[in-house]
C-alpha cells in the first residue's frame, strides 16, 4: 500500500519540481522518476506473472465510492510491456529532445505530460472503479495529446493533435455510457458489478454492453473504421512519443477489450466472430494503405493498424474458444494476442526510433527524398532491417513466433469446426497470409528506398549517425526481438498466468501449454538458432572461397546505358505501382501530373497524395454536412433588438398555443387513420 502511495506521490512531486529545473535536469528527473515508478510497478507485475494477485482499496470519495486496485496477471503483463517501452523511449527521448533545448517551458510541459502519461497508463491497468478509470483514461488521453503537440507552432501538428483529442473524447463517451448503464442497474461503479449485472441478464444485454465498451476501446486501439486519428497523430508527434503511442497507448485499447472480456459475461462465440471480422478487416486495410504512403511515420502508423488487426485475430480466436468451451483454442488465441502485443510494442517502437534518427539526420520523412543512408548510418540501418524482418513475421525474429501461434490457433480450430467456422477460418488464414505478404512488400520498399541505392535528393547539410548512447535503447530492444525469436517457449511460459485468467472461465484447473499444444515453439527456437548458424557457416565458406579472388568495383549494370544518375533509380511509388494499379479503386490516390508533351517538352512533374477512403466517407463528409447544417442557424443572433424580443414572444406563444392545437392534431390524425 505504501508503495502505491509512493507511486502516486512521486509523479506529483516531479511535476511540481520540473518547471524550475534546467533543461537537462527536467529530462533527467523525469527519467529517474519513471525508472522508480517502473521498478515499483514492475515489482508487483513480476510477481503476478507467477500467479499472485494483489488487492488494495482506497476509500475514494462520495462520487466514486470505494476504489479497488487489483493487479492481476493481465495487468502485470501490460505493465511490464509499458515499462519496457517507456524506459527505452524516455532514454531515447533524452537525446532526441536535445535538438529543442532552447524551448524551455515547452520542454517542461512535454516532460510533465510524459510522466503523467506513464502514471495514468499504469493506473488504467489496475483501477477497478468506473469513474476513477474514466479519470485516469482521460488524463492519459490529455497528456498524450500534450505530448503529441510538442511542435505546436506547426498548424498541421495541432490539427492532428486536436483530431486525436476529439476522437479519444468520443471513445470516453462510449465508455461513459457503458459505466452509466451498469451503475444505474447495480448502483455501483465497481468492475465486479459489471460481472454480476451481465450474469443476471440475458446474453443480449451482455453483447450490447460489450459493444458499447468495444467501440470505446477500439477507437483508442485503432481498429478499422475507428482508426482515422492514428495516421495523423503518429507523424505529428515527436518520435519517442510516436514510438510510445504505437507501442503502448493503442495497446491500452487492447487491454481494455481483454479486461471487458474477463468482466462481461456474454455469448463469446458471436463476439469472437465479430472481433475476428473486424480484425481481418483492420489488418488488410491497414497494410494496404501502408504501402502507398510517402511519409515514413505515416507508413509505420498504418502498420500499427495492421498489427492491431493481427492481435485482434488472436483475441477473436480466443473468444471463440471460450464460447465453444475449448480451452485449448482459447489458450492459443489469447497467448498469440498477448505475445503479439509485446512483439509489436518492441519492433514498432524500434522502427519509430530509427525513423526519428533518420528524421534528425535528414530533416525529412518523405521517403521519396531519401536513399543510400546505409552508407552514412550502417548501424541504424541494421536496426531498421531487424525490426522490418520482425514485423513481417519472418523467422528468426519475434514477429514470427506470435504469428505462428495465431496460425496454429486457426489450424487447431479447423480440426474440429463446423462449416460456418471453417469458412471464417479459411478467410482469416487468407487474410493473415495476405497481410504477411503485403507487409513484406511494404517493408522491402521502405527499407530499400530509405537506406539502399543512392540519395535521391542531395542535402546541403552533412548526414551523420546518432550518437551511440541514443542508439543504446535500440540495441536493447533488438536484443529482446532476437531473444524472443530464439527462446519462444520461455516467453510462452511467462504467459501461463495471464492466459489462465481466460481459460479459467471454462475450466479453472486447466494450465495452458502443458499439453504439448505449442511444443512446436521449442523446435522453432532451435531451428531459428540453427538457421543463424547455417547462415554464418555459408558466409564463412564464402569468405574463405572468395578471398582468393579479387572483387572489382564498377558501376551498376545499366543494360548498356553508361551514364546512370540517381534519378533513374526505382522510387517508392514506382516500386508500389504494379500493386497500386491492381487496387486502384480501393486505394483512392489523388494524382496531379503534368506529362511531357510537344517536340521540346518543358519540365514535367507527377505527384500523388494517398487519401484514406474510410476517413473520407466516415469522418470528413459527415462533419462537413454537420457543420453546414449548423451554420444554417447563424441568423439567430443577427444583432437586431427586435429579434431578441421576438424569440421571447415566440417561445411564450408557442408554449401556450401548441398544447391547444395538439389535441386537435391528434384528433385529425385519428380521423385520417379511420379513413
Amino acid at each position, binding site marked *: 500500500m505504501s508503495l502505491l502511495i509512493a507511486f502516486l506521490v512521486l509523479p506529483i512531486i516531479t511535476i511540481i519540481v520540473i518547471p524550475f529545473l534546467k533543461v537537462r535536469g527536467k529530462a533527467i528527473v523525469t527519467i529517474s522518476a519513471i525508472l522508480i515508478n517502473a521498478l515499483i510497478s514492475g515489482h508487483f507485475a513480476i510477481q503476478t506473472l507467477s500467479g499472485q494477485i494483489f488487492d488494495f482499496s482506497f476509500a475514494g470519495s462520495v462520487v466514486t465510492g470505494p476504489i479497488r486496485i487489483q493487479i492481476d496477471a493481465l495487468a502485470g503483463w501490460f505493465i511490464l510491456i509499458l515499462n519496457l517501452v517507456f524506459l527505452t523511449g524516455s532514454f531515447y527521448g533524452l537525446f532526441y529532445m536535445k535538438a529543442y533545448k532552447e524551448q524551455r517551458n515547452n520542454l517542461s510541459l512535454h516532460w510533465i505530460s510524459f510522466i503523467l502519461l506513464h502514471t495514468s497508463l499504469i493506473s488504467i491497468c489496475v483501477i477497478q472503479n468506473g469513474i476513477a478509470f474514466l479519470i485516469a483514461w482521460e488524463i492519459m488521453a490529455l497528456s498524450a495529446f500534450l505530448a503529441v503537440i510538442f511542435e505546436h507552432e506547426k498548424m498541421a501538428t495541432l490539427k492532428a493533435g486536436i483530431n486525436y483529442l476529439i476522437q479519444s473524447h468520443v471513445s470516453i463517451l462510449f465508455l461513459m455510457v457503458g459505466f452509466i448503464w451498469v451503475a444505474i442497474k447495480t448502483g455501483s461503479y465497481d468492475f465486479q458489478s459489471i460481472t454480476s449485472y451481465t450474469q443476471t441478464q440475458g446474453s443480449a444485454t451482455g453483447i450490447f454492453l460489450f459493444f458499447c465498451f468495444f467501440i470505446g476501446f477500439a477507437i483508442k486501439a485503432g481498429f478499422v473504421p475507428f482508426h482515422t486519428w492514428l495516421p495523423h497523430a503518429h507523424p505529428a508527434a515527436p518520435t519517442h512519443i510516436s514510438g510510445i503511442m504505437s507501442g503502448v497507448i493503442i495497446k491500452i485499447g487492447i487491454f481494455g477489450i481483454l479486461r471487458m472480456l474477463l468482466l462481461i459475461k456474454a455469448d463469446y462465440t458471436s463476439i469472437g466472430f465479430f472481433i475476428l471480422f473486424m480484425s481481418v478487416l483492420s489488418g488488410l486495410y491497414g497494410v494496404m494503405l501502408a504501402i502507398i504512403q510517402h511519409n515514413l511515420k505515416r507508413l509505420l502508423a498504418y502498420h500499427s493498424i495492421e498489427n492491431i488487426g493481427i492481435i485482434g485475430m488472436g483475441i477473436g480466436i480466443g473468444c471463440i474458444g471460450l464460447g465453444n468451451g475449448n480451452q485449448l483454442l482459447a489458450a492459443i488465441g489469447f497467448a498469440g494476442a498477448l505475445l503479439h502485443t509485446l512483439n509489436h510494442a518492441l519492433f514498432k517502437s524500434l522502427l519509430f526510433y530509427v525513423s526519428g534518427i533518420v528524421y534528425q539526420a535528414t530533416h525529412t520523412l518523405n521517403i521519396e527524398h531519401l536513399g543510400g543512408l546505409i552508407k552514412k548510418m550502417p548501424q541504424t540501418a541494421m536496426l531498421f532491417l531487424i525490426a522490418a524482418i520482425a514485423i513481417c513475421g519472418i523467422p528468426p525474429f519475434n514477429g514470427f513466433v506470435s504469428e505462428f501461434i495465431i496460425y496454429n490457433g486457426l489450424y487447431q480450430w479447423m480440426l474440429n469446426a463446423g462449416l460456418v467456422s471453417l469458412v471464417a477460418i479459411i478467410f482469416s488464414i487468407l487474410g493473415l497470409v495476405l497481410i504477411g505478404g503485403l507487409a513484406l512488400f511494404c517493408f522491402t520498399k521502405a527499407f530499400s528506398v530509405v537506406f539502399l541505392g543512392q540519395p535521391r535528393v542531395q542535402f546541403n547539410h552533412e548526414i551523420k549517425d546518432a550518437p551511440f548512447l541514443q542508439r543504446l535503447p535500440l540495441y536493447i530492444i533488438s536484443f529482446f526481438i532476437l531473444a524472443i525469436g530464439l527462446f519462444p517457449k520461455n516467453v510462452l511460459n511467462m504467459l501461463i498466468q495471464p492466459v489462465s485468467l481466460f481459460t479459467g472461465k471454462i475450466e479453472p484447473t486447466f494450465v495452458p501449454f502443458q499439453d504439448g499444444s505449442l511444443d512446436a515453439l521449442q523446435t522453432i527456437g532451435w531451428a531459428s538458432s540453427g538457421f543463424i548458424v547455417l547462415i554464418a557457416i555459408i558466409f564463412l565458406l564464402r569468405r574463405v572461397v572468395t578471398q582468393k579472388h579479387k572483387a572489382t568495383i564498377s558501376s551498376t549494370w545499366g543494360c548498356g546505358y553508361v551514364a546512370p544518375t540517381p534519378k533513374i533509380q526505382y522510387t517508392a511509388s514506382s516500386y508500389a505501382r504494379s500493386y497500386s494499379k491492381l487496387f486502384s479503386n480501393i486505394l483512392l490516390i489523388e494524382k496531379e501530373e503534368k506529362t511531357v508533351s510537344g517536340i521540346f517538352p518543358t519540365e514535367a512533374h507527377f505527384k500523388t497524395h494517398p487519401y484514406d477512403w474510410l476517413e473520407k466517407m466516415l469522418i470528413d463528409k459527415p462533419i462537413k454536412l454537420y457543420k453546414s447544417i449548423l451554420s444554417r442557424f447563424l441568423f439567430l443572433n443577427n444583432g437586431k433588438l427586435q429579434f431578441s*424580443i421576438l424569440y421571447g*414572444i415566440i417561445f411564450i406563444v408557442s408554449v401556450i398555443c401548441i398544447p391547444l392545437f395538439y389535441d386537435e392534431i391528434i384528433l385529425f390524425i385519428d380521423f385520417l387513420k379511420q379513413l
Partner: protein
Amino acid sequence: MIHVILIVFIITLFYLSIANRMLTYVKVLALQGVLLFFVAFLQLSEINTLNLIFILLETIVFKAIAVPLFLGYLLKRNNITREAEPFLPNFVSLIITTAIVVATILLSNSILDSHLDKMFFVVALSTLFTGLYFIASRRKIITHVMGYMVIENGVFVLSMAVGNEMPMMVNLGVMLDIFASVLILGIFLNKIGDVFKDVDVDQLTNLKDY
C-alpha cells in the same frame, strides 16, 4: 363604467397601430395614462386611502404628464423625424393588433375563474402583445421605448385585477414603471441621441455573431 374605459383603452391601441406621426404616439400615451388613472380610481376602492392616493398620483404624474412631456422633449432634443417609419404598412399593423385582441379574447374564454374580471385579462394581455408587436415592427429606437410604455400600461391594468388583495403588487408595478422610464428613457436614450446622429435601430446592429 370600468369596462367602458377599458374598451376605450383598447381603441387607443388600434389608433396607435395606425398612427404615423411621433407626436400622436406621445398624445395617445398621455391619454392612456389618464384612462388608467380613472381605472385605478374606480377599481381600487377597497385599499386604504394613503396607498390609493400614492398610486393615483403615480399614474397621473408619470403616465399622463411626466413621461409624455419627456418624450416630447426627447423628440425635439434629438430632432427625430416626425414619421413613425414602421417596417410594415399601417393596415397590416391594424389587422395584427385586431388579431391579437381576438386571440386574447379567445384565450380568456378558456379561463374558468370567478376571482378575475376577464375584461382586465383581455385588455392587459392584448396591450402587452400589442406593445411587443410595436417594438418588433417599428424602426425608431424611441418607438421601442413607446412600445415599452404600452407594455407597462398593460401590466398596470393587469395589476389592477389583483390590486385590491395585493396593493403591493401595484406599487411594484409603479416601481417598474419609474425604473424603466428613468433608466431607459432618461439616461441611455439621450446618450444614444448624442452618440449616434440619426436614432435608427439599424445602427445598433454591430454586435452580432457572424
